[in-house]
């Protein structure tokens, strides 16, 4: 024991003297400090989740303890390796020490040290809460016990078992390399496995949580559906999966300690034979081979050679140097470790390139490039950083510099060969990335290889960016005297860039190596991103090249490393380097100036905070006008000329405005958020009262007020002229092919709350109160306001739109807008299209689209005559066109039969570039992003056909949104989104069957529960929904489907039909200013079709937030004499009511819940019995007789109800 104590205290003393101990502590301290003090540093939850609450603390500790595995490896590994590195083992192991004292002392010392080092997390977090600039609305005080609990359950346990494993591996291998590598390997392997698991979107949360050593999966499994209130009060418990997980891993730790105790040899001989044996043997062998044969002692004369020094010698030197440097890297294990990680990542990401959210897609080249490039870029930077250090320092590190530096070569040859070697390595890695991408496409059965796209992306765009960092790293390593400081600065600057960018320092011109973001699109290629990319890369590459020239001047050569000596060499080398230095500086100045001229002079440069300032200022200045009575738009007539090759358009517009209020209106307020309106005129005398900066908000006064019911003509110019390029933030609406802008470019009459800031944190920054909710149902003004277009009820619409017959590729484009094509003609190299809706009134919601299109047409025989279905698609994407047409036909058939006749004679789907990813339903016209045109169904049994689904959803909006429009009050959004979602589900169900729908609904349940867990505001019941997408989509489909399960599809559709027929086209005729329908009428329509015993479901599901906690307790079966099986099933049912923040209270209940018995394996059950039973008691037992051998049984087995733990609803049926 005394010996143990000796080793233990020795270890502690040694660590106390080591600088690294304090550096590690400081590292954890600051990381943890920043998490609290700088909100953006690590996002652990939404605005309602405390930054230092139990959930956030646990998440922070898990993440940093995970990163800490490298530190754990270093601390534990070196403690056991120290004696072998310093060759003191010969001394130690010849003394009479016990295994326990030696191993135990070292291990315990390391454990205590590591735990103390990691307490930096606790102290850092505590210190962060005191930072005066921190967001104190999200910090709880006196929370020290939270830190300690999380530290114990997460960090200490992890240090114990990881440390023990690393200790054991280090003790048994005794190789420094292994010590450092094992941490990295653990890190990488875990990330890969975690990524795979995430990508499968599995809803399995038990075994994955138990066997997760780090805790990311465990935390997810336990807290997945925790509401903010729970996240701020509950800890990871020492029970359930948490306990099992911790026990499993502590067990692994103990096991590894037993292993090391049993296997560690405590004798010098055994130890030596492993650590030194092979090396000594090799030397002996070499010496022996040299000694063979007797040689004359007389020296033979050496041959005479001729030295040549000319340009080709310089080249030969350069090539030879580069070659051995590349060879040096290729023969190193760490390089291959990085290489393998890279390949693993690329193949993994490549595999999932064809999985876009929950659907399969064709792994087209841009998706594949996105997938394989992302992580590879980081790894390439790691290679650049690491090997810049190795290459610059190799001669010195290996003590070869004496010979190397005296060779007759120029510094530039030597230095450039380092650059060339690194560049070559990076090119090799990029090629590997490309091959991984191509291979992944092949595996996915996609054979349309676009090598030129790979080439452009990887070699022309990514490679120069890597090169910029390579030059930077080489420069640092050349100038600095310490390799590791160099590494630190490179990585630090990379992190710093991200931090700066997050805080509004966004200018490419001062963010080192930065390029503006860009998106490749099959419709457009790199399109309008090319100039900004080219000039930013030129700018930074020439600056980096200048640093390179500087490095050549400052490169160390010879024994003297003092600055005086280096400056002397520098002055000596300057004349030769001057021309290159000047050239690069000139290129940098030139390209930088051109970049500045484009991004700051031709265009206004606004950082994200500046843009938020504009939004906030707008709200502060003009919010007071929100309820100012304004006339409504009742007719729109516009001429729009699109110039796709200039990413511009111009035109004129004509509005007819009508005063639908009872009082005269003397001021017209016009909002122009896109800087696209000018030249506003009215048909009577008027003057401009005021106009805010950028013409965002302009007030006009009519000399003679507009009387109630009176109409007013308003004319204006509309257009936007793209000039030069921007520093990111290019308008996605304008493209060389795929122009798509909507009514947002046209004048908005009256204050538009849509331009307000919505993120609560940003609003707090701007000292704005909470964002205004939609008013309650029945609000006099809100009820009379159109939910979608505040400044209009219904309009008549006519337009002429033209586009180029010779666009940037010299090809003709097609221009589209809602309405029926009246005629089209060519004039002056342009193609004109006149569209009109005729007498049909529509929502004031239109769009202009122009692109190079292929068109596929079909006709559906609707109840009121033929309906033309047209899909306008990019020639690259023919895949899903038929699917879209099929969905449109199925939808038209179902909706016309169940809801009402289709209002229009055409339905068109238009592809637009993937700068934005959505589909949107304009009258009879649906622009749909590129991502929807590459959907793919590999296995119809398993895959969700999202394109089919979304098409049906958008088509359904032609009813729910274009026929039925709600008032601008709480809840109305669900009448468009939830009903479109429900409609689409029905269409998909008809094609893919019930089982698929259950699977889909399971994901919807998960989405809803996670959505409410991250609710930053408060969750409303669905009929009062404000802007919570997870409520109107996911909860919407769950409750609509749930209701249909009670009362039947027919009854639900009948309710919808009645509701629609009563309230559609509200306010559609001029002069009409009546209330729009809201969810009260909607609920009434549902209730009318629902029998009394199920009315409670509508109250629960639609008007409240109700959660079930159902659970199967026991299930046994006995064989009956008539060869049947009698199942005895005991289940628990609980119903809870939740408030908007997630506080739950139990509810009494008399509910009908499914009871089911199944045969077959879990996951592939066949239904033997499924019936609704009335529940009044929390615990009930059922006896059910089935024909076949039962395997599973339970309550609400196919998860029709909202239940936070759906997995425990069924259990195995066993013999008693």
């Amino acid at each position, binding site marked *: 024991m005394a010996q143990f104590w000796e080793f233990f205290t020795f270890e502690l003393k040694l660590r106390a003297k080591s600088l690294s101990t304090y550096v590690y502590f400081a590292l954890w301290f600051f990381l943890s400090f920043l998490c609290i003090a700088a909100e953006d540093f690590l996002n652990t939850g939404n605005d309602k989740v405390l930054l230092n609450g139990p959930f956030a603390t646990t998440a922070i500790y898990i993440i940093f303890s995970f990163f800490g595995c490298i530190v754990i490896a270093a601390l534990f590994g070196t403690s056991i390796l120290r004696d072998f590195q310093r060759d003191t083992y010969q001394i130690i192991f010849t003394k009479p020490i016990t295994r326990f004292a030696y191993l135990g002392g070292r291990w315990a010392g390391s454990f205590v040290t590591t735990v103390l080092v990691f307490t930096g997390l606790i102290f850092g977090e505590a210190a962060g809460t005191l930072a005066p600039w921190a967001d104190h609305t999200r910090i709880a005080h006196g929370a020290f016990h939270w830190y300690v609990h999380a530290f114990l359950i997460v960090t200490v346990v992890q240090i114990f078992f990881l440390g023990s494993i690393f200790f054991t591996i280090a003790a048994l291998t005794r190789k420094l390399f292994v010590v450092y590598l094992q941490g990295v390997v653990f890190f990488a392997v875990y990330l890969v496995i975690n990524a795979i698991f995430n990508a499968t979107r599995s809803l399995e949360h038990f075994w994955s949580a138990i066997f997760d050593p780090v805790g990311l999966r465990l935390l997810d499994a336990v807290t997945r559906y925790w509401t903010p209130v729970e996240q701020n009060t509950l800890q990871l418990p020492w029970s359930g999966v948490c306990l099992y997980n911790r026990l499993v891993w502590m067990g692994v730790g103990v096991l590894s300690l037993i292993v090391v105790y049993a296997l560690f040899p405590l004798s010098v001989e055994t130890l030596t034979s492993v650590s030194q044996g092979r090396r000594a043997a090799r030397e002996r062998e070499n010496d022996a081979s*040299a000694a063979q044969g007797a040689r004359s002692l007389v020296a033979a004369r050496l*041959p005479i050679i001729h030295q*040549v020094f000319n340009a080709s010698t310089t080249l030969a030197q350069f090539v030879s140097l580069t070659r051995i440097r590349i060879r*040096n890297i290729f023969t190193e294990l760490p390089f291959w470790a990085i290489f393998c990680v890279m390949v693993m990542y690329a193949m993994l990401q490549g595999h999932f390139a064809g999985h876009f959210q929950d659907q399969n897609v064709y792994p087209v080249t841009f998706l594949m490039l996105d997938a394989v490039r992302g992580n590879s870029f980081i790894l390439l930077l790691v290679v650049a950083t690491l090997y810049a250090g190795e290459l610059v320092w190799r001669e010195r590190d290996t003590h070869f510099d004496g010979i190397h530096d005296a060779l007759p*070569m120029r510094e530039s040859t030597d230095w450039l060969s380092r650059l060339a070697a690194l560049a070559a390595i990076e090119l090799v890695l990029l090629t590997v990335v490309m091959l991984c991408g191509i291979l992944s496409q092949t595996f996915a059965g996609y054979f349309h290889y676009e090598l030129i796209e790979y080439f452009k992306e990887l070699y022309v765009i990514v490679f120069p960016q890597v090169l910029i960092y390579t030059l930077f790293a080489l420069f640092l390593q050349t100038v600095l005297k310490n390799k590791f400081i160099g590494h630190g600065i490179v990585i630090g600057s990379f992190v710093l860039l991200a931090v700066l960018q997050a805080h509004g320092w966004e200018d490419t011109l001062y963010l080192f190596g930065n390029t503006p973001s860009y998106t490749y699109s099959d419709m457009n290629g790199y399109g309008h991103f090319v100039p900004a990319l080219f000039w930013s890369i030129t700018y930074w590459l020439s600056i980096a090249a200048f640093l390179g020239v500087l490095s050549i001047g400052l490169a160390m050569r010879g024994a003297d490393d003092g600055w005086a000596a280096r400056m002397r060499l520098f002055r000596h080398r300057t004349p030769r380097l001057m021309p290159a230095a000047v050239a690069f500086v000139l290129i940098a100045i030139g390209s930088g100036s051109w970049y500045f001229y484009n991004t700051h002079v031709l265009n206004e440069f606004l950082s994200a905070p500046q843009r938020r300032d504009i939004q906030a200022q707008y709200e502060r200045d003009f919010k007071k006008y929100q309820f100012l009575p304004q006339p409504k738009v009742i007719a729109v007539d516009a001429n729009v000329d699109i110039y796709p090759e200039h990413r511009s358009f111009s035109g004129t517009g004509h509005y007819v405005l009508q005063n639908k209020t009872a009082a005269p209106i003397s001021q017209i307020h016009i909002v122009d958020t896109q800087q696209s309106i000018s030249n506003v005129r009215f048909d009577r005398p008027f003057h401009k009262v005021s106009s805010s900066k950028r013409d965002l908000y302009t007030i006009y006064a009519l000399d003679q007020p507009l009387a109630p019911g009176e109409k007013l003509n308003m004319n204006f110019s509309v257009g936007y002229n793209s000039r030069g390029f921007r520093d990111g933030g290019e308008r996605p609406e304008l493209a060389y092919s795929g122009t798509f802008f909507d009514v947002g470019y046209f004048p908005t009459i009256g204050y538009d709350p849509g331009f307000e800031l919505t993120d609560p944190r940003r609003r707090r920054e701007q000292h704005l109160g909470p964002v205004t909710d939609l008013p309650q149902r029945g609000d006099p003004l809100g009820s009379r306001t159109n939910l979608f277009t505040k400044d209009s009820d219904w309009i008549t619409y006519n337009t002429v739109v033209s586009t180029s017959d010779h666009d940037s590729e010299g090809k003709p484009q097609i221009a589209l807008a809602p309405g029926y094509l009246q005629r089209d003609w060519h004039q002056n190299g342009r193609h004109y299209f006149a569209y009109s809706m005729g007498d049909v009134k529509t929502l004031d919601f239109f769009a202009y689209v122009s692109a190079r299109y292929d068109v596929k047409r079909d006709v559906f025989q609707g109840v009121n005559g033929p309906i033309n279905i047209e899909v306008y698609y990019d020639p690259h994407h023919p895949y899903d066109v038929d699917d879209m047409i099929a969905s449109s036909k199925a939808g038209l058939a179902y909706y016309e039969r169940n809801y009402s006749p289709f209002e229009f004679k055409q339905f068109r789907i238009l592809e637009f570039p993937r700068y934005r990813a959505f589909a949107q339903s304009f009258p009879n016209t649906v622009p749909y992003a590129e991502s929807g045109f590459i959907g793919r169904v590999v296995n119809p049994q398993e895959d969700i056909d999202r394109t089919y689904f979304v098409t049906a959803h958008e088509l359904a909006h032609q009813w729910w949104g274009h026929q039925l429009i709600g008032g601008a009050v709480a809840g109305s959004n669900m009448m468009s989104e939830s009903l479109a979602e429900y409609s689409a589900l029905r269409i998909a169900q008809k094609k893919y069957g019930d089982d698929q729908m259950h699977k889909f609904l399971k994901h919807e349940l998960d989405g809803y529960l996670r959505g409410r867990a991250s609710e930053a505001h408060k969750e409303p019941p669905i009929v009062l929904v404000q802007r919570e997408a997870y409520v109107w989509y996911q909860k919407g489909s769950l409750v609509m489907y749930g209701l249909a399960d009670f009362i039947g599809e027919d009854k639900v559709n009948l309710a919808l039909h009645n509701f629609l027929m009563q309230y559609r086209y509200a306010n559609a005729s001029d002069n009409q200013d009546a209330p729009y329908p809201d969810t009260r009428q909607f609920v009434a329509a549902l209730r009318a079709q629902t029998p009394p015993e199920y009315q409670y479901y509508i109250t629960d599901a639609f008007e409240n937030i109700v959660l079930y906690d159902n659970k199967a307790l026991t299930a046994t079966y006995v064989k009956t004499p008539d060869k049947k099986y009698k199942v005895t099933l005991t289940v628990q049912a609980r119903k809870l009511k939740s408030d908007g923040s997630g506080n739950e209270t139990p509810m009494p209940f008399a509910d009908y819940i499914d009871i089911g018995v199944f045969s077959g394996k879990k996951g592939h059950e066949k239904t033997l019995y499924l019936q609704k039973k009335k529940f009044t008691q929390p615990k009930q037992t059922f006896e059910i007789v089935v024909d076949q051998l039962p395997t599973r049984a339970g309550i609400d087995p196919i998860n029709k109800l909202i239940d936070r733990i759906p997995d425990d609803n069924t259990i195995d049926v066993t013999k008693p």
Partner: protein
Amino acid sequence: MALTISGLSKTYPNGVKALRNLSLTIGNEMFGLLGPNGAGKSSLMRTVATLQDPDSGSVTLDGIDVLKDKNAVRRVLGYLPQEFGVYPRMSALDMLHHLAIMKGISNKTERNQMVDALLNQTNLWAARKKSLSTYSGGMKQRFGIAQALLANPKLIIVDEPTAGLDPAERNRFLNLLSSIGSNVTVILSTHIVDDVRELCPRMAIIASGQVLLEGSPAAALDLLNGKIFSKVVATDDELRALEASFSVISTHLVGGLHEVRIYAGTNPGADFKPVDSGLEDVYFLNLATQAASQAAN
């Protein structure tokens, strides 16, 4: 070829004065540089090998200013540093080929011939394809010699070349060096007196950055002829007594007894016997004199 070193001074940032106004002239010959550790030998060699600039002074090689036109010197230089390492996982063959290219041997046939010849001469032929990092200390030293002799250098600077070589290899190396022939300047730095005695027609002894003696070993020996006496004593006390009364040059242990050599104009008697002088006596005497003069200062 002639190397002229004049007035070389160098003070390191830590205050150590490595060279103090040192001047030497070295012709086409094998020139031995003797001195104790820290005498400034390596500093001098590095300066001549273009790896270090002096604070003052000049070095010229046949009219080339070594300090300015470094690359001109490097082309004719063969340099073996005192300590050097190798790239891991590179074979001697590949490395020599690389260095041959670097030294401007552009003709491939010549390069092959030279590399093969050197591998044979340094007895590395059998191990030529083995990784350098697996070489033993002696083999590594031989590789160092081989690379220094690539490209028929006109100026060869070898710093402690025989350290780490076994006696047979040492002889072989010395033979090789002496066979390289005329019109080559070789500077051999060592603290092994025998290396110089066996090889160098001219030599210098330096200590504390200064030249103590420059000339031919024979001439230096002549000066000491008949002035070295030796005595064998048994105990440390006797040795101390001798040190107090005579200028002791050196002591050796012979069979457990101290053999003391002193320098004196005439036989001091007291059992001292006259003995033949050796180069080692020259070396030690110079060092002792310098130490004494420094102590006097």
